[in-house]
């Protein structure tokens, strides 16, 4: 605290040295954002057609510095340790940017053909991605909070993008109110963490918590619980999941894909930062909380998903269950910090591939049926065999059937849970195994409708699928297959140094 005040005293200010190479992805995204706003402001309606292309070029351009940074290797620390670019943050940034690229592919026709505001859509999407990319590098409470707001606020608006539809308004409003509520709780928790730790930098707080030891358990517990609840809303973990199904159903489907994949991943990234750089010194407090969250999310998500008749709602509940699987490695964070963190990142990457793929197929099919009811998928194999096969593979991957990506994701989580050899770890692994079996039922129900049922209206003319959607499905399918067949690829990519703390 005194150090902080001394820094703010007049005469003591020194301009921070900026590592422009490390900040290049953020700068490229910011420039893209500015270009999009200028384009919209200058050309007005005539800009509509070029917006998706400019967005995609910007996103791809942001990937280039990520590759050069990865080639350079090493950890770059900036702003006194508040902003760290290390291999883990590079992988996560690439995940966010590629997910956003796929979401733009999904949105292009959807937004252009519906009666929506088009230019603003892409501006908001890019600013949300910028928030996620900043989140991946933030190692400071303030940085994490700013990144969280930057990625959430555009998402609230995107959820309500089908302005004329009551459901979409409901989706946006629910998401907004719950999100703001969660932010408030999070901020209160952060203020307590700052009060205990005396710093906003995660590493310093971690050291301070270690120093305190078992003193003052009530206030530390209170602080950690509030912060975790704030992010539990973001990743839609039970019992903080109630907004998710309504929001996912009402929002435009490409936005749902974005929320279910990128936004959820951003919540997990924040959890990874906070847990592994800071709260890791108090496994006695965080592990029981994560056990309860993980077990409840898997079980409740799966049981409610069994009864859904709408495929988007089903995917929403399945997303809650999958969030439970992703929370599971945190249960053994104290015993196996490196491996459990790696398991979460592997799951995030593979989940993004298979879930984006599933949403892409649902969007393609909804172009014909206009609905997300599972019955409307009947006879799909007869008139769109390619899409039927793709969706079956994505669903099989979500179940965790080898040799698809989802299998490796689940395997790595199981592995770390069992290797930890703790009671909570064993218990989580058992609940997870049971839930994997339950999940197979509702995923396969969709597959059965596609393969064995007849088309409900008898109309079997194939749908014209735009090139962007086909590209998105192909991209997701290739990723799902490659990560399943060559799991070593991903585990090499995510084997981070044990202490990439920085500062």
């Amino acid at each position: 605290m005194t150090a902080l005040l001394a820094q703010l005293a007049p005469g003591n200010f020194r301009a921070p040295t900026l590592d422009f190479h490390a900040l290049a992805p953020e700068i490229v995204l910011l420039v893209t954002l500015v270009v999009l706003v200028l384009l919209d402001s200058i050309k007005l309606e005539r800009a509509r057609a070029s917006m998706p292309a400019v967005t995609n070029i910007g996103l791809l351009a942001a990937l280039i510095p990520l590759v050069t940074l990865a080639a350079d290797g090493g950890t770059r620390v900036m702003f006194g340790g508040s902003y760290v670019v290390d291999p883990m943050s590079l992988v996560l940034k690439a995940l966010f940017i590629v997910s956003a690229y796929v979401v733009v592919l999904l949105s292009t026709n959807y937004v252009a053909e519906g009666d929506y505001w088009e230019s603003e859509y892409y501006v908001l999407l890019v600013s949300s991605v910028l928030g996620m990319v900043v989140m991946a590098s933030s190692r400071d409470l303030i940085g994490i909070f700013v990144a969280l707001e930057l990625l959430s606020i555009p998402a609230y608006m995107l959820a309500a993008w089908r302005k004329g539809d009551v459901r979409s308004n409901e989706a946006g409003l629910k998401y907004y109110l719950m999100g703001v509520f969660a932010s408030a709780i999070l901020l209160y928790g952060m203020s307590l963490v700052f009060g205990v730790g005396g710093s906003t930098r995660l590493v310093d707080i971690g050291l301070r918590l270690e120093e305190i030891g078992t003193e003052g358990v009530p206030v530390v517990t209170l602080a950690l619980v509030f912060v975790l609840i704030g992010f539990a809303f973001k990743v839609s973990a039970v019992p903080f999941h109630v907004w998710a199904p309504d929001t996912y159903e009402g929002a435009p489907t490409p936005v749902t894909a974005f929320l279910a994949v990128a936004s959820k991943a951003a919540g997990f990234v924040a959890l990874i930062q906070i847990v592994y750089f800071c709260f890791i010194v108090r496994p006695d407090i965080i592990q029981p909380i994560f056990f309860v969250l993980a077990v409840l999310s898997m079980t409740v998500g799966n049981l409610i998903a069994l009864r859904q008749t709408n495929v988007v709602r089903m995917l929403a509940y399945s997303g809650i269950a999958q969030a439970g699987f992703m929370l599971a490695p945190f249960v053994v964070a104290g015993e196996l910090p490196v491996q459990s963190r790696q398991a979460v990142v592997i799951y995030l990457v593979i989940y993004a591939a298979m879930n984006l793929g599933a949403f892409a197929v649902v969007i393609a099919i909804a172009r014909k049926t206009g609905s997300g009811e599972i019955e409307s998928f009947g006879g799909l194999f007869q008139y769109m065999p390619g899409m039927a096969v793709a969706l079956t593979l994505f669903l099989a991957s979500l179940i965790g059937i080898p040799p698809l990506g989802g299998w490796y994701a689940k395997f790595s989580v199981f592995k770390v849970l069992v290797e930890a050899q703790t009671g909570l770890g064993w218990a989580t692994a058992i609940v997870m195994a049971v839930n994997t079996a339950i999940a197979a039922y509702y995923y396969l129900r969709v597959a059965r409708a596609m393969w064995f049922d007849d088309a409900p209206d008898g109309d079997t003319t194939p749908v014209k699928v735009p090139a962007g959607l086909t590209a998105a499905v192909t991209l997701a399918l290739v990723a799902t297959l490659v990560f399943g067949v060559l799991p070593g690829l991903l585990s090499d990519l995510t084997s981070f140094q044990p202490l990439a703390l920085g500062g």
Partner: protein
Amino acid sequence: MSNPLSAFLRDYLTVGIFASLAFVLVGLLLFISWLVRPDRRQAQKYIAYESGVDPVGDMWSQSQVRYYIFALLFVMFDVEAVFIFPWATQLEVFGFFGLIEMTIFIVILLLGLVYAWRKGVLRWV
């Protein structure tokens, strides 16, 4: 006493004491005035007070929806001011670096105004 955590919690105790004092004080004052005041009920005393004028119309009055845009634009420049004033008081300290940072910040915020202007928001139809 030496434990910083219990000191931290004790600060909250102070807040709690003051909060309960506030409630007690308000209750006490209301109780005393209830004891000493005369009690003469008249119909006029039950009308809502509206600056001395007789209240007219419904209490749910609607305001023009267009004002929300001005509220938004106001927030934009309000936030700008929150950052510009502290910077202005320490202008020499932050030097050239601060100037560049502030220029980037103001230009990006101004983009919002340009957007609003081009979309015809500033025109009162």
